[in-house]
């Protein structure tokens, strides 16, 4: 192998060390090919690239969380999460996925930090509780918040997976006894990309990682730090039930005639009109369905503090488009209180950009 002496070992070497057979390796290569939209003829080349190219190390730490982000990630079927885990990136430290445990694992973490100082990506699942000096979440005998700060210090960038890391989620819901705190309030000196959702869509997670590795930078973020290409549209904008909303056709009771007809779920408490996510375009399970398609309203799991917004079945009442939500395109039209050409054009352009199709279809 030509790059054996390079500082960062290749992906294949790591896989072999972990006892993965050549046969499985080749299978991962073919999965990667399909994830990138490449034909089978590229498989040998991918295999070769993985044998020779240095990999990007990722450290994946878990705080207070339920592992649904990991579950979503590894079960992502189409741009196969598996192959992203095992080929495009390499998880040097992940409680859930790594083979080692105990002291050995903690030593591996230290080693990774030292070896790839400033070069690794830190993925955070869950959040640190700060109350009682962080004693509500202990990893390797120490509070998780200490581990988080230690690892983040030398990271190139931080990915906050899920509603927990991005906003706090259920453990931060009132009265928040453990004082669970989202990552961006603890790590303040690193670029943080938030990928909210409970869990986030697998294709979104892999899409974010692929983008970062390919272009070596963060994708365009909105004001809340979410990748605009996945969180720029509301569920409501692209919902297939939208024509029923426009036409005032609503489900009035569960299982009434209108529910059978697939009418709009707004009156049943659907949070689609205030939720920014890609569910209605990307959908779940290889684009099979999403909550609204299965007949239940959106609960708004990718929005800040969704546990404290009342019942999932309360009808939305006071909705501001770009005022309160403070998303990427805060226009402040109402605040400005003027009808001005420039303000109108700005509002129009941001609405158009929001409405544009962001996921490119790759042929082949």
């Amino acid at each position, binding site marked *: 192998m030509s790059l054996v002496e390079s500082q960062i070992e290749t992906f294949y070497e790591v896989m072999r060390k972990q006892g993965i057979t050549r046969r499985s390796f080749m299978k991962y290569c073919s999965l990667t090919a399909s994830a990138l939209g490449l034909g089978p003829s590229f498989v040998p080349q991918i295999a*070769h*690239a993985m044998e020779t190219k240095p990999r990007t190390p990722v450290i994946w730490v878990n705080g207070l969380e339920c592992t649904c982000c990991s579950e979503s990630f590894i079960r992502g079927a189409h741009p196969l999460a598996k192959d992203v885990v095992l080929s495009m990136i390499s998880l040097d430290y992940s409680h859930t996925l790594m083979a080692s445990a105990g002291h050995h694992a903690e030593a591996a973490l230290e080693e990774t930090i030292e070896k790839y100082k400033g070069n690794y990506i830190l993925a955070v699942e869950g959040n640190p509780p700060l109350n009682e000096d962080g004693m509500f979440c202990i990893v390797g005998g120490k509070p998780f918040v200490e581990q988080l700060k230690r690892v983040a210090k030398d990271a190139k960038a931080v990915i906050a997976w899920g509603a927990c890391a991005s906003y706090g989620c259920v453990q931060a819901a009132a009265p928040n006894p453990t004082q669970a705190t989202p990552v961006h309030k603890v790590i303040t000196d690193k670029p943080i990309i938030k990928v909210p959702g409970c869990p986030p869509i697998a294709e979104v997670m892999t*899409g974010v990682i692929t983008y970062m590795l390919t272009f070596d930078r963060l994708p365009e973020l909105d004001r809340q730090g979410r990748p*605009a290409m996945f969180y720029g549209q509301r569920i409501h904008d692209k919902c297939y039930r939208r024509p029923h909303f426009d036409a*005032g056709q609503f489900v009035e009771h569960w299982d009434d005639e209108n529910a059978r007809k697939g009418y709009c779920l707004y009156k049943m408490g659907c949070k689609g009109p205030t939720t920014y996510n890609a569910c209605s375009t990307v959908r779940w399970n290889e684009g099979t369905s999403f909550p609204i398609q299965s007949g239940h309203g959106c609960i708004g799991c990718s929005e800040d503090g969704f546990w404290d917004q009342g019942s999932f079945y309360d009808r939305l009442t006071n909705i501001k488009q770009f005022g309160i939500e403070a998303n990427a395109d805060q226009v402040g039209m109402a605040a400005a209180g003027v009808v001005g050409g420039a303000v109108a054009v700005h*509002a129009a352009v941001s609405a158009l950009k929001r409405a544009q199709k962001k996921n490119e279809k790759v042929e082949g």
Partner: protein
Amino acid sequence: MTSFEGSYLGASDKISPRAIMECKICWTPYDPSEGDDSRQVLPGTPFLALPDDWSCPGCNAPKAQFLVREDPGNAEEARIEAQTRALVADFTEIFHAKMRDLPMVNQALHVQAVGFRRHEAPELPGTLGVLIAPWFMNLVLIPDQPLALKPGEKLTLTFPSGAYEFIFNTREQTGDYLACALFSPMGDFTSQLQAVEVAHAVMSELMKSENRAETDRSAEIRARAEGSLTEVAQDEAEPSPPEVPTLIAPTRRALLTGGQG
């Protein structure tokens, strides 16, 4: 302007070049196909292209006092107007029947169709414009031909500013239409005027290529992956054998003369 005015009063966007106009005072017509002999206006000159100081050849009434007698160039416009009228009537009815008391409806607004015009896209010609309602603002395309789609199905249409997903629906009064959501709910609009202004801006910004947002760039990611893989393949390709200088046996003559002869 009083409501019984009747004359066109300089509303040049309302009449086509083929419009036949007549003076509202003495009923003298102006027909573009004949021109005006008294002012040496050549046949084929549209009413709007007449000189500013042109006045009625019969009674000297100013140009603005003419009214439309017939406008054959406007059949298209009349059709668009009929379409938008049906659209507005349809959604006004929805507003009164079903939406009126919902808390998310912005009571400062009313249903209005803005900027509807001919959209000559090769794949789907139709009428394109912005529909404002107290609970949404949508880009709406009314196709010329009925579409074989079910309500809720999506269709991607491309404009200079990017690709937009439209959702199909059909209603008795409006017929088939495709809608792309721009705003909903409409809580941030304080007046109808503001909404209309934004709608007009949408129609012009839609056709500008600088308003393209960043996509997930999967096409580019793929191109890069292919590129880097070909690179690897090239590196891997058998190194071509080192060039061995070919030894040409010198001729007897060259040998004897040391290459001089």
